[in-house]
């Protein structure tokens, strides 16, 4: 009892210190959903083997486009600042409509463009652009990568056929993480 009595204040002090530290860390470090998605968008550039026809010239920047309303704010710009992919500087461009859509290597299609999704996909055709969206069932509909939020975690669904059709081989490492979706078979996991 003497030992307990003597050590109890020490334990309490340690516990309190731990709680304070954890709360601080969560508050400081826990990234927002779009912050994560912005990093993911950038990271997709590493796991796709970009063909030469994806770029008009060697000096052309590597462009990440955002179509529709921009959910990222400045987070995406922060994520790509100063980065290069295979000698191409990274830029972020935002497009309000399909009409404005210009050449870009990764295109994020916002939820706001859900009605025009098929149109957009048709417009893109077989351009070497990796399409990414968070619209539910987007992958089923032909988007190459779909963000799915499950139990507070962001998961990926990838339409390999679509990417293949566009001439963009996706790294198996990435595929291992994602659910593979094909229009005929529906969703599948590797």
């Amino acid at each position, binding site marked *: 009892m003497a030992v307990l009595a003597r050590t109890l204040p020490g334990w309490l002090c340690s516990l309190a210190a731990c709680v304070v530290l954890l709360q601080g860390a969560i508050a400081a*470090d826990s990234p927002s959903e779009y912050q*994560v998605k912005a990093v*993911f968008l950038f*990271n997709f550039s*590493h*796991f796709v083997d970009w063909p030469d026809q994806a770029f008009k010239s060697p000096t052309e920047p590597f462009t990440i486009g955002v179509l529709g309303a921009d959910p990222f704010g400045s987070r995406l710009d922060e994520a790509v600042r100063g*980065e*290069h*992919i*295979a000698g191409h500087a990274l830029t972020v461009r935002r497009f309000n409509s399909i009409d404005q859509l210009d050449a870009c290597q990764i295109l994020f299609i916002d939820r706001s463009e859900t009605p025009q999704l098929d149109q957009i996909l048709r417009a893109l055709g077989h351009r070497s652009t990796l399409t990414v969206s968070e619209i539910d069932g987007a992958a089923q509909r032909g988007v190459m990568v779909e963000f799915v939020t499950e139990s507070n*975690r*962001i998961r*990926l669904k990838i339409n390999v056929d679509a990417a293949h059709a566009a001439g963009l081989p996706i*790294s198996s*490492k*990435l595929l*291992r*993480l994602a659910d593979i979706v094909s229009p005929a078979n529906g969703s599948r996991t590797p």
Partner: protein
Amino acid sequence: MTTSAISIRHRLTRLLFLSSGAVLALTTIAFCTYEAVTFRHSSIQQLRTLSQAIASNSTAALAFDNTQDATSVLGAFRAEPHIVGAALYDSHGRLFATYPQTAAASSFPMHPGMAGFAFTRSALAGFMPVVEGTSHLGMLYVQSDLGAMYARIELYALIVVLVIGLCSALAYLLSRRLQHELLRPIWALAETARAVSERHDYSVRANRTGTKEFDLFTDTFNQMLTQIQGSESRLRDQLSRLSLLQQITRATGERQDLPSIFQVVLGSLEQDLPIDFGCFLLHDAEAQSLTVSALGIAGRVFADRLGLADMSVIPIDQNGLSRCIAGQLVYEPDVLEVPFPFPQRLASAGLRSLVISPLIVENQVFGVMISTRRESQAFSSGECEFLRQLSEHVALASHQARLYGALQKAYDDLRLSQHTVMQQERLRALGQMASGIAHDINNAISPVSLYTESLLEREPNLSERARGYLVTIQRAIEDVARTVARMREFYREREAQLTLARVDLNAAIRQVAELTRPRWNDLPQQRGLHVELNMDLADALPEIMGAEHEIRDALTNLIFNAIDAMPAGGTITALTRKVTGGDGHDRSVIEVRDTGVGMDDDTRRRCLEPFYTTKGERGTGLGLAMVYGMVQRHSAEIEIDSAIGVGTAVRLSFPAHTSSVVSVVHGAKPATVNRRLRILLVDDDPVLIKSLQDTLQEDGHVISVAHGGQAGIDAFTVSEQRAERFDIVVTDLGMPQVDGRKVAAAIKEISAATPIILLTGWGQRLIAANDTPPHVDKVLSKPPRLAELRAAFVELLP
């Protein structure tokens, strides 16, 4: 197997083990060091490769924040059991995933460190960056335990042990093989050496083995054995010769004469060297020849063939003999080749080898020793040396024998001289004492003699009886005086003036027997004893020259001794014989023999010494001493035979009288001085001087007396001053302070013409010693006799 062989074998084994062990150790250390270095390097490389693969597979998981995938990627480390922990950190340095999944976060570093791998004390750990393209996605931490290394080390240790075991076995087998190869010749040599040392057999030889070095060794060893064998046999010979030399030296040392020394040397040489014939020749320098002194007994047959016998003479020719005489040892290996007579003579007797060794004493060759053998070349140099040494020893022994002989003779002479001197010394001492006694007795009886003579002359009216008594007294006094004189003189050589007359020993012994009858007949009969005196006298006994009274006294002494020697009675035999001595002269022998107690050796040896007596207080110890004195004075010989309990025989042997010279017997020539003389008598003895005064006064002389030397001189001086000169002075010799000599000298100084008569108790001796003192005209002995005094007066006064 000997200890040194074991030692060499062990050493060889140890050597091989040490060298192979050292090589193995070095190799192992090098190998292990190399392996340790390369293993660390390759371990790091391996871990890096593995980490690289895992890191590469982890990129997507990190990039898309998939912990599950990351965990499954890390799960690939299961394939490598030594990986005990791994962790992924995201680009922010946060722990992202761990392996094993359940491991506590605290078992990993909180933050990633620098890229790279390193060994810690118990593990190999490090960080690997996770990069996709150019993008840094995070860090991989991998920790491997050292189990692999330990396993490797165990494997190596096992290999090392196996290799060392195999090598040791191989080294042992090789060393056995090599030892056998190397040690076989050594063992063979050792075996030979042992055989040599144990059996002292130097004829064995070690066998060659076919190995160059060992054969060299073996040859050297065998050569050494040969030398030892030679030395050993030479040493043996030398030793035997030395012991022979010693034996001969000892044998010669025990002998003192040349012939027996030579004989023992030849005997030893013939038996032990050996030689066939040997002899000793003595060198005669004057005759230039050698004389055979000794011939070997065993070689007698050769001596006969050579015609050599004791005392044979061999001339010295121009050959070995002459060289030997010059002091050289001569060795002729073959006498056939020596063309000189003596060697040829030996050759003809069948002797071929000859050694002549000189016998040298004080640089003089006094002889040679000849040793010969039948075979030619038969004497080794060692034997020649031995003969040379032997001849030196023999020469020395001969020399010593001669010296010993001379010494013995000198010693005998010395002992004889000493004996004589001692005897004379004893007698001289006795004589001195006796003459003192004689002096006193003579003084004492002088008045008796003077008065008796005077009475007989001047008293014609004496009765016959009185005259008879006086005559007896006079004879007794004369006997006393003679006895005293003899007592004083028994030790002296016969004196010139001793009166010798023909003496018949038969008559003398008859007289003595008659004279001593009361002792040997009457006295014993009173005590109930019976003593018989037999006489066995030779008829034709030659007369001898001698003093009869001395001979009578001597015989009397012998009879008395015989009686004393027979306290229980017995027989005395007196016999006389004529014998012919060794020089061809006749001798008369008289012997007195008793059947008494006899004498032991000591008594017999000492019985002639003065004062030696066996009769206690009854004896004077002078009896036989006087006999001996008489014997000496008469040039006679005395022999005493005695045996305890048997008796004693004393034999006196006198030279028989051959010359026809008849001694002059003093006749009494009455002579008187017819005138009246003034006589000065000087004597310290008042009785004597009174008797002299009385008797001389009766002759009509005027007598003055002086009782002492100084008084006499004074009296003479006074009379001279008064012109009343004394015609003659009669003085005693022995007086206190001023003796007769001084008186005579003083008187002669005053009046050289005055005759001086010296009276002396030692008169006889003075005369004998021709010792008449200066200034004395006549010496007369005491007791003085009137006739002598008167004759002296006549002689001295014209």
